[in-house]
């Protein structure tokens, strides 16, 4: 799975290639923060900060949970084998599988005894 591993490495380094994201990560590594509390530290919109948190989350560096209306973010680094990182890897595996299923379903040559009427495009 070299490509997937490389993709994930890209995600890690992309996530850390931004000053604001590194700062967010330092804060959430110290303890859980709500996204709105984080947003107050930066001269940018809540939505922009939320996007930064999402990039960190996709890279497996931050995990988020919901409490009422608040989204709480915490840091995940140092936990190479943390459950979060493991589930993130499993997610990548399933995303790959589902892309392949989608390709397979789109490839009409594999349809054998399908009698379902074809949908017009």
């Amino acid at each position, binding site marked *: 799975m070299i490509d997937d591993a490389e993709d994930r490495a890209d995600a890690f380094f992309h996530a850390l290639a931004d000053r604001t994201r590194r700062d967010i990560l330092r804060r959430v590594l110290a303890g859980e923060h709500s996204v709105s509390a984080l947003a107050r530290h930066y001269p940018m919109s809540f939505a922009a900060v939320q996007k930064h948190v999402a990039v960190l989350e996709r890279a497996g560096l931050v995990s988020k949970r919901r409490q009422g209306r608040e989204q709480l973010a915490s840091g995940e680094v140092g936990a190479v084998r943390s459950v979060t990182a493991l589930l993130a890897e499993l997610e990548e595996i399933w995303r790959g599988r589902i892309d392949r299923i*989608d390709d*397979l379903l789109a490839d009409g040559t594999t349809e054998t005894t399908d009698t379902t009427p074809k949908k017009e495009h």
Partner: protein
Amino acid sequence: MPVTDVTKDLESRTITVTSEFAAPVDRVWQIWEDPRQLERWWGPPTHPATFTDHDLTPGARVKYYMTGPDGEVYPGYWDITEVAKPSRLAYDDGFADADGEPQESAPVGSSTVDLLATDSGTQMVMTATYPTAEDLQKVLDMGMEEGITQAVNQVDALLAA
């Protein structure tokens, strides 16, 4: 993107992946039921899967192996626990030895697959649960690259600097 939702539960080490396909439920069922079709998507291109025993009947054992780029073989099995064609499949999965028999200390995860007809095709909800973080790690090590660990270690070093 056919994946419409991913939820992860850290406490129970569970992942749920929801996807939508533009094909009827019967057609999507085939990609699980036909081992030749299953082989086209189960393993990544670098680690294709070969299913040697395949019978979707409760109590049956499905056997397969994945082959890595160096020819290394990773055998695994599913014990089928529930089948409701064409809408539900459940199985426990584990690792096998070279003969395809379950390893004694093998971890066993549990997965369910539900297929639901929608206006545009089929919604597939896949849930996988692993009893411990170690079991989950073993699943990921099965035919997976180590590169990611190196990447994280580098990130660790970067943050510690």
